[in-house]
């Protein structure tokens, strides 16, 4: 079974690599934009899966980091700075600091309280973005220049943005796989299944959970910076709580604690949005019941229908 999932992963990556060429030939550049969007949201979903699936932390405010990363790019280019290293450096630093702050106050809480406190902080950032009129407030902010890396890589170019995003996503997946197999990951998973026992054998859950939360926040912040580059527009709506809900849906649709499942979940969610909205402007009326059905009948995510889980995992 593991072999099958490796093959599927490799196949998926190969398909993703061919997307720009295929859309170029078939003259469907729209689908390149769509796939870029999927790749970017996959990062957000993977970052959430890292803390949700392996740390048991149900963050209901992850869209806040999309906003932090996005606004970092938007505000810098507002002042005429388009250097990609500065853009992404600031995005990473800012989301790390925000994650550190939120994490310090929230990772001590568990269960539904953690859900609520992360929600509270993302709402705070949402309202902050709405009320700062210098940067567009409620109307949002146009990104005046995409990130340019040393004059070589220009994210305004759609192919370059796509490959950059894909490379970053693959890098993140690799880092996450290494991370969860490492000592750090073992401790994190131990804390998820039994925090008290981990304390008893001498670990301090706080530090491990906080670090995981910061790593996850940074990953989501990078996704936000890329998203700002793609849409060249950033508004508070990116931090709305329903956006956090969507990221969570993506992670869960593909099956939590699978990492790669989050990528599939992101593709599935955005794909559904795309196809359903073609039939009717009221596509949410179809998507809503579909989510309910998935929760009620496909308990380990859609991926579990293709690749059976090796063992039953316990969810937090």
């Amino acid at each position, binding site marked *: 079974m593991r072999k099958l999932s490796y093959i599927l992963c490799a196949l998926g990556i190969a398909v993703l690599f061919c997307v720009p060429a295929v859309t170029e030939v078939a003259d469907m550049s729209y689908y390149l934009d769509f796939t870029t969007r999927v790749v970017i949201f996959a990062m957000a979903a993977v970052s959430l899966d890292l803390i949700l699936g392996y740390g048991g932390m149900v963050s209901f405010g992850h869209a806040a980091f999309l906003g932090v990363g996005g606004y970092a790019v938007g505000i810098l280019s507002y002042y005429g700075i388009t250097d990609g290293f500065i853009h992404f450096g600031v995005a990473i630093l800012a989301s790390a600091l925000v994650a550190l702050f939120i994490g310090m106050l929230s990772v001590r809480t568990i269960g539904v309280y953690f859900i609520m406190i992360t929600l*509270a*902080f993302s709402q705070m950032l949402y309202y902050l973005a709405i009320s700062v*009129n210098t940067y567009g407030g409620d109307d949002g902010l146009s990104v005046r220049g995409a990130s340019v890396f040393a004059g070589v890589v220009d994210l305004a170019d759609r192919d370059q943005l796509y490959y950059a995003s894909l490379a970053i996503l693959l890098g993140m997946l690799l880092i996450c796989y290494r991370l969860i197999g490492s000592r750090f990951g073992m401790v994190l998973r131990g804390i998820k299944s039994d925090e008290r026992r981990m304390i008893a054998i001498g670990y301090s859950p706080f530090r491990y959970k906080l670090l995981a939360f910061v790593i996850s926040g940074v990953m989501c912040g990078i996704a936000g910076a890329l998203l700002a580059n793609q849409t060249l527009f950033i508004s508070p709506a990116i931090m709305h709580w329903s956006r956090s809900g969507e990221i969570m849906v993506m992670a869960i649709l593909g099956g939590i604690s699978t990492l790669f499942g989050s990528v599939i979940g992101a593709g599935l969610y955005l794909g559904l949005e795309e196809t359903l909205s073609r039939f009717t402007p009221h596509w949410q*009326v179809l998507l809503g019941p579909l*989510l309910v059905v998935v929760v009620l009948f496909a308990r380990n995510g859609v991926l579990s229908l293709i690749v059976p889980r090796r063992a039953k995992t316990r969810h937090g």
Partner: protein
Amino acid sequence: MNGVLALEQILNGLQFGVMLFLITAGLTLTFGIMNLVNLAHGILYMLGAYFCASLTVATGSFVGAVILASAATVLVGIVIELLTLKRLYARNHLDQVLATFGVVLFFNELVRIIWGPASIYSSVPPALSGQVELIPGLLYPAYRLVIIGVGLVAAAALVLLINFSKLGMLIRAGASNRIMVSAIGVNIDLLNTLVFGLGAAFAALAGAIAGPILTVESGMGNDMLILALVVIVIGGIGSIKGAFIASLLVGLIDTFGRTMLRPLFELFMTKAAANSAGPAVASMLIYLAMALVLFFRPQGLFPPRTR
């Protein structure tokens, strides 16, 4: 700020607070008793408002419309409960969040299909559209006073029901140990549905009476739901008393934040800075309060005694 203005703000805060309480009451009961994170509670508030706006036009009577709208919403709520929520009680919070998120998407869009994407404005019934001079110099809209009154009466009725009736006794018993309650022969499924229906009635009532002073639109329940969750966490999950006090607290904090922070900031900032910082901090204030409560008293201000 003089006394009259302060009193007016207190009344505004109270009015917002009791509205919040009507929504929160049902949510904290389902949360406390069935251990269900129900994001779909906000749509009951929204449905109440829509039903009431349509029924007011259809029947010509506002009071009749409020009652009918609440009844209709209870029916819809019970259908939702039987079809989806019932299967979620035994699941983890993650599944509950996801499934009820789906329910929210469905109803927000359904409302857009039925009533159209534009907001609906309904007016305050003529008999209540006047203003009342409470103390010399303070004219206050009669309708807002009625909201405060209705909210307080409903809160009192709920406290009486929970603390002094057979049903209330079962609800409290269910909150402390639902397995034991079902073992001694109480139909816990029926009890859950009843509690959910009760919560739906309160949320619909809030939506119905809020209709005339707010715009009725799709998604209006979402923001209220988030506020209700904040209230529950501050008050302590499952506690009616906590929900009541926290509702008023959140209502007052929010109202005073919006009116007082700007002048307060002007004392030590430039006018321009205060103009942008005031509203920013004001809208974050209740979330700040919730974060503080969670940090220093994670179980909320008034956690239920049982458990």
